[in-house]
């Protein structure tokens, strides 16, 4: 059955308004493709080269690429807080054992998703925040740098625009994957909302809200209005719907619709089930996405790729 395709990966570079500038749209799409390709490369490594969960490796690698790319609101290029600082959040989850790692309000680490992974693998904890998280980074031998490294001109002008109420905001990056062995994993990373209050934490680093992964079902990653996602524990909810029998695409559309109706929030979700079926949906104009599997190869786009009513190999 060509629809049952593992390994597979879906990444997103955030949702929001569709940029006017065509070259900007192009750059977002190419950026997402690069991340998906990096994940795919890991997922298709030979057995000799990989052990453990390549899904976990793949989502970390994909998100790192998006963090390093200053166009996306994660790592370098993160949105700025109200007082012009960078405060980043990230999380990663391993569907094999429900282990997870999360960091919030970190300012001096280039790749928050990697720091989150270290929390997961080197401590008994799930989540570390602020200076505690940065101290851990130092203890763990992860290079720390001054936050100026991550502040881009684009982020600064977005802050100006937001403070004057004139801006648009893309947000959060994420990836979900299933590997050859049926292991699933998910990861998210963000600089948060432009102009947010210091110390504000939204959905991205929160297990159940920004992401969730469980080998028994699949993995999901959310983007959009953080507080709305949190109020519905969106990622967890979507996977329960899949458990209840919805297809990934149906589940994704249902929770996005619910978010609009129940809490008047806009946003999107990507989801992959343990069989490699995918779901991608947003209630915003735009969601930057890219996917890779055997049957369809690399696909990407800036808007909802498909609705569950239409037949597709992917969904």
């Amino acid at each position, binding site marked *: 059955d060509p629809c049952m395709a593992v390994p597979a990966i879906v990444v997103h570079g955030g949702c929001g308004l569709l940029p006017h500038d065509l070259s900007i749209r192009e750059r977002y799409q190419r950026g997402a493709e690069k991340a998906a390709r990096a994940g795919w490369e890991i997922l298709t490594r030979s057995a000799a080269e990989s052990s453990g969960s390549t899904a976990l490796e793949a989502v970390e690698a994909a998100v790192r690429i998006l963090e390093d790319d200053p166009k996306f609101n994660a790592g370098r290029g993160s949105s700025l807080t109200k007082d012009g600082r960078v405060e980043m959040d990230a999380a990663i989850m391993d569907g094999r*054992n*429900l*282990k*997870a790692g999360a960091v*919030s*309000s970190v300012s001096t680490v280039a790749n928050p998703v990697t720091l989150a992974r270290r929390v997961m693998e*080197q*401590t*008994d*904890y*799930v*989540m*570390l*925040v*602020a*200076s*505690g*998280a940065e*101290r*851990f980074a130092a*203890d*763990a031998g992860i290079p720390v740098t001054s936050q100026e490294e991550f502040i881009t001109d684009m982020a600064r002008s977005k802050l100006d625009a937001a403070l004057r109420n004139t801006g648009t905001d893309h947000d959060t990056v994420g990836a979900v994957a299933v590997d050859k062995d049926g292991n699933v994993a998910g990861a998210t990373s963000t600089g948060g909302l432009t102009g*947010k*209050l*210091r*110390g*504000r*934490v*939204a959905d991205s680093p*929160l*297990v*159940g*809200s920004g992401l*969730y992964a469980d080998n028994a079902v699949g993995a999901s990653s959310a983007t959009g209005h*953080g*507080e709305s996602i*949190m*109020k*519905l*524990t969106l990622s*967890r*909810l979507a996977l*329960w719907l899949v458990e209840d029998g919805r297809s990934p695409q149906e589940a994704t559309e249902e929770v996005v619709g619910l978010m609009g109706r*129940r*809490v008047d929030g806009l946003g999107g979700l990507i989801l992959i089930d343990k069989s490699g079926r995918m779901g991608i949906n947003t209630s915003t104009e735009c969601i930057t996405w890219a996917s890779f599997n055997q049957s369809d190869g690399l696909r990407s786009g800036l808007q909802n790729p498909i609705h569950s009513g239409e037949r597709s190999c992917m969904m």
Partner: protein
Amino acid sequence: LAKPYSCSDAMAACVVVHGGAWAIPDTLVVANVTGVQEAADKAWTVLSANGSALSAVEAAIRCLEDNPSFNAGTGAVLNEAGKVEMDAILMNGKDLKCGAVACVSGVPNPVTLARLVMEKTDHVMMVGSGAERLWDEAGFQRISNESLVTEAAKEEFQQFKKFHNTVDNLFKSQSADEMSTGSLGHETVGAVAVDNDGNVACGTSTGGITGKRVGRVGDVPIIGAGGYCDNAVGAASTTGYGESILKVTLARKALWLIEHGKSPKEAAQTALEEMHEKVGGCGGIIIVKPDGCTGIHFTTKRMPWAVCSQHGRKHGIEPEDLHQ
């Protein structure tokens, strides 16, 4: 979805309070039971005056935070730096509005700070000094870290330092086993309520775990884990091994089971059993539904709880007490 379980003895307003699920020693039993009863009474005063479930839950938790016998507010356990660092959550079932704070210090009532996040900002969760600033803006008094520290907390911290060499355990805190079975350390406090208008609310508050790394956040302030509520289903507050609760979004899970037809008691039990099965760890859950039906269960040695409704008061701490 399956037809929802309905309580045969439907009551109107109701509050359930818990003081944490763990291996409570005999010497602390009386203080724990008295404490939760007092908190439930405070909440009941609010409810019987037609107050909101949200205010009732806040009142109950404030009472437990002010009570030095519990690991919340005054009496909170100490982190690795010997300081108090608290987390709390408060949620409203009517509109799913929520406020949560993590790693805050210098405030006597983190649950009230959580309410400020919910009502004074557009955000749901705030950490550290960013959150504390709201306390100042509301015109409340800060307090010193020392005023929250009790002798018991200091002693527990000394014990922790004696048996856990911080150099060897640079990254790890208590052994997962100890935390997992609730055999070491105090716990969280929480409350759930339904008011005369049928609105539900939940809240949870904690000082975390003794000797935790600075900045460690457990389940309490994470929506869906430490607490969750929705007028369409009910309200839940959890307690137990934080990392496990987080991994299974325990509060949301319990309510999901109710949506699928389980009674509150069955939902609490099933959710805890599944958690133990999937990720290890013990804990407790309290639930109330909009029709006043309650569910209480725990898998640790003890958990103090109290219920107030128009039918009177109930309380317990031993597993046998759950059969009331």
